């Protein structure tokens, strides 16, 4: 499978998605679509990290309930977040009696979890899996940038970490199938600016998308939607521009989860949303339901993540990035 697309002989289908978001996200353009929101971003907990775990717990419990399964039916949980040691997931999913694999793919984690599970499913190793992802503005701000109440200014290319968790239950039932998977390679184009992660991640998305179209011979026209998550405004513009230079025109059917979740002007989020919760809740609340209804038939979802830590940046390192591709298809009547 080196460099190759994985064609899933046995296609897993998304049985249920459930999304939990914070107050800012519920006031955004997709606000009405999320399953649950909490106006108190601490979710009645005494720390931001516990709040993030609480979101994961609510998200997965909600997805399980929607799917009609119980936790012991699920073969494996693939979950991740932005916190050190993935504690958001480890603590959040303690209550469920399911084997757990922690993932770190930064904002690509949602795609990574769906893709790994799809491969296990296709290989007949599992029959039902859960993919859970979260991020919290306050817990990541503390870890990656400044204290919350610190008075600083953000640059126009900065992105706003989404407070949200998205959970998926994937198995043999559902109208949305995962038919192909292409794992990304870590790519570092030398960007060191933590306030321009879109520019750091765009080359990874370009690499994955180019490899996908080269191998399949498809063109962007063959898809109803190509959705990246989360390049934000800056990264999306770079992606479209540089792909066009390679003869791949995605300008008409591309969108980005980071551009969908917030109203960039009204909510003062500069280049848009980011964080692994962003693509998890946007896909779960908006894109996948549209495929379920048959409004979209073929969708490419490319989860993009910036894989740096504050320590490597202080040491002068640049930001490596990754992009995993998941092809989603309508399998209704």
């Amino acid at each position, binding site marked *: 499978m080196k460099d190759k697309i994985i064609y899933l002989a046995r296609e897993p289908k998304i049985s249920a998605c459930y999304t939990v978001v914070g107050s800012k996200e519920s006031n955004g353009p997709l606000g009405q679509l999320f399953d649950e929101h909490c106006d108190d971003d601490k979710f009645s907990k005494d*720390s931001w990290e516990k709040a993030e775990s609480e979101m994961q717990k609510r998200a997965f419990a909600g997805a399980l309930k929607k799917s009609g399964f119980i936790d012991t039916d699920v073969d494996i949980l693939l979950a991740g977040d932005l916190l050190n040691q993935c504690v958001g997931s480890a603590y959040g999913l303690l209550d469920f009696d399911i084997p757990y694999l922690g993932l770190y793919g930064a904002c690509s984690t949602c795609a990574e979890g769906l893709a790994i599970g799809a491969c296990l499913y296709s290989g007949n190793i599992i029959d039902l899996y859960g993919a859970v992802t979260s991020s919290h503005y306050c817990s990541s701000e*503390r870890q990656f940038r400044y204290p919350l*109440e*610190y*008075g600083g*200014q953000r640059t126009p290319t900065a992105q706003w970490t989404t407070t949200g968790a998205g959970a998926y239950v994937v198995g043999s039932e559902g109208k949305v199938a995962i038919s192909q998977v292409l794992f990304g390679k870590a790519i570092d184009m030398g960007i060191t600016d933590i306030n321009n992660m879109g*520019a750091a991640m765009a080359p990874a998305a370009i690499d994955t998308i180019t490899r996908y179209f080269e191998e399949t011979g498809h063109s962007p026209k063959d898809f109803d939607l190509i959705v990246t998550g989360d390049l934000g405004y*800056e990264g999306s513009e*770079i992606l479209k521009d540089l792909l066009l230079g390679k003869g791949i025109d995605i300008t008409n059917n591309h969108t980005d989860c980071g551009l969908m979740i917030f109203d960039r002007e009204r909510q003062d989020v500069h280049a848009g949303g980011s964080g692994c919760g962003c693509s998890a809740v946007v896909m779960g609340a908006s894109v996948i339901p549209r495929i379920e209804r048959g409004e979209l038939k073929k969708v490419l979802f490319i989860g993009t993540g910036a894989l740096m830590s504050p320590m490597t940046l202080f040491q002068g390192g640049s930001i490596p990035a990754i992009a995993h591709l998941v092809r989603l298809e309508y399998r209704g009547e």
Partner: protein
Amino acid sequence: MDKQEYKEYVEGRMKKSPILKNCFHAFLMGGAICTLGQAFLELYMVLGVERATASTLASITLIFLAILLTGLGVFDNIARLAGAGTIVPITGFANSVASSALDTKSEGYVLGVGAKIFTIAGPVILFGTMSGVLYGVIYYLVTALGG
């Protein structure tokens, strides 16, 4: 496209921070803070405090207000607009200490607040003290030689 070309491409297309607008806001807010400080100084002097003490009291009052506004969650909203206008005066220093303290409270008073309260202000304290010492030595040498 190699790394260098990509970097130039990204920097070339990147929207820059609106420097003129930011400077204008910083000028207004920085000026307002200084005027407020001056008003406190005058007030304390009217109340009969001598000038040197009144000046210290005025600084302490500004520090108090900055910390109060940080605790109320208002300071960062003002600073988002004012930028250097709130960071450069003593208010910025107070905010950097208070915000770190608030943030690390969940890890306890010793390993959280105690260990991390100066995460942002630390370099200012360290290098500020060191340059003070250096200045003192130079001042001493110059006056000793000159005088």
